[in-house]
């Protein structure tokens, strides 16, 4: 179970200065401005749920995921994942989650995929029998066989994301965070990723929180969506409800999302 209460995260960033003697001015006294990446959000995700987390670039999705996985400490508010506070009970929390960033790999760049998996086995202290069983299953479901012995830098993007997914699941986490897992992947590979994620969620009861820009991802995979804009939640509910609220049953999801973003842009 994931619970988030009044979660906030603000960053301080240096501001470039304009005008005459700008260099000198920013050298003598730099100016900062605050940016609220996440501005007071609340939600609860129950065990075994699969939730889509959507929003424009810079809406605060990645920041939320980073706080949920314990990389970032919140400025204010509460986070709890599987009964643990991510940034406090760090190691124990990490053993219970899996994270995949579609944009970057968590595998070792220059070594064969299998070596990466082996070192992760050691890091998470997965016992031999379980490791073998998982490896067999993921190799089968994700078709890892052909590139298990290849170094990660030689993999195509689709293969890399599959390898990353397997790596994130080797230690049987209860919760899975996926940050744009399908980005840049071709249609067929996307289809396979969706099937796999859905299966993991259904068969193993893994809780999944997934960010995406792909409307097909949402339609095919999730029943519930959370829409975030400028650090605040605009909508939290079923996909069905989203349709009803913004344009009727036959409305195109893409149009709906565009509509919501535009609306959010006005209020922000």
């Amino acid at each position: 179970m994931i619970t988030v209460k009044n979660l906030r995260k603000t960053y301080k960033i240096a501001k470039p200065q304009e005008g005459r003697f700008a260099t000198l001015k920013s050298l003598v006294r730099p100016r900062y401005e605050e940016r609220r990446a996440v501005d007071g959000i609340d939600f609860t995700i129950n065990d075994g749920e699969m939730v889509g987390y959507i929003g424009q670039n810079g809406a605060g999705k990645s920041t939320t995921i980073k706080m949920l996985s314990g990389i970032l400490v919140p400025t204010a508010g509460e986070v709890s994942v599987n009964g643990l506070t991510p940034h406090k009970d760090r190691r124990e929390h990490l053993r219970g989650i899996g994270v995949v960033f579609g944009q970057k790999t968590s595998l070792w760049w220059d070594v064969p995929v299998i070596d990466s998996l082996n070192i992760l086995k050691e890091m998470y202290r997965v016992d031999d029998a379980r490791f073998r069983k998982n490896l067999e299953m993921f190799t089968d479901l994700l078709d890892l066989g052909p590139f298990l012995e290849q170094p990660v830098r030689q993999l195509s993007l689709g293969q890399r994301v599959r390898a990353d997914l397997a790596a994130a699941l080797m230690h049987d986490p209860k919760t899975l965070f996926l940050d744009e897992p399908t980005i840049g992947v071709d249609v067929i590979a996307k289809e396979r990723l969706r099937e796999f994620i859905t299966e993991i969620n259904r068969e193993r009861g893994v809780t999944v929180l997934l960010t995406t820009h792909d409307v097909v991802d949402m339609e095919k995979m999730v029943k519930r969506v959370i829409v975030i804009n400028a650090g605040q939640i605009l909508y939290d509910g079923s996909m069905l409800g989203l349709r009803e609220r913004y344009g009727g049953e036959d409305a195109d999801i893409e149009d709906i999302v565009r509509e919501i973003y535009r609306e959010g842009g006005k209020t922000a």
Partner: protein
Amino acid sequence: MREVKAGLKMYGSLLKMTMRGILQYRADFWMSLVSVSLLNGANIVQLSVISWRFHALGSWQVGDLLVLYGLFMISWSIFSVFFYRLSKIEDEIVSGSFDVYLLRPVSPFLQLVGGDIKYTGLCDTLLGVVLIPTGLSMTGTHWGLWQIFWFVIFVLSGGAIAVCIKFLISCVTFWTTKASALSQVFIQIYLLTQKYPVTIFGPAFRVLVTGLVPVAYLNFYPAVYLLGKPDAPPWVCMLAPVIAMVLAGIAALVWRRGLRRYNSSGA
């Protein structure tokens, strides 16, 4: 104790994997050897020209200068072979791989150190191994067991000092995201102490490289002690291991604070 053992085992496994990765770029190996030698070559050429023209630098004869340079290279190579990645925190943060370290239930420090080995650093070791005996035979100095014992102590402390300073500078990234300029300042300092006896740079500089950024303990003080130079009293030289330990303590503290800072800013 159990944790230390588990840590070492983890480090071993990481290194094994890293080596396998490196072996894939065999063609690079020879090219690296050549270029590292050429880079050191610039220093050697400068030293040779100076010694050919001037024969000495103050009370330091050519042989002394070779020992000085050799000591630096050996201590330094402990950093450049095994701990090189510690100086690259900025790159790790920019490329996003630092986040990945924080996602695994193993100390980020271990993942950082175990993730890289720079075999080209062995050129530095080799150079030192050649330079020191050459220098010693030129000055006609003979080392007994006592000197060899201290040589080992000096190299280990020097290595630790080099690693700690590089690591501390790299940790600055957590606060400014730009540690490269500071690292440049440090490079300028050690480029001076690497080849020349600290004495020629005057007392202020000497205080700087003894107390503040103790690079003089990589080679100057060891050389003074082992060659019996009058530039410093023996007890000051023998402080090397103490300084190494103090620095290691400071580095551990700063690293911990840096991590906490990263957690709150995300850089």
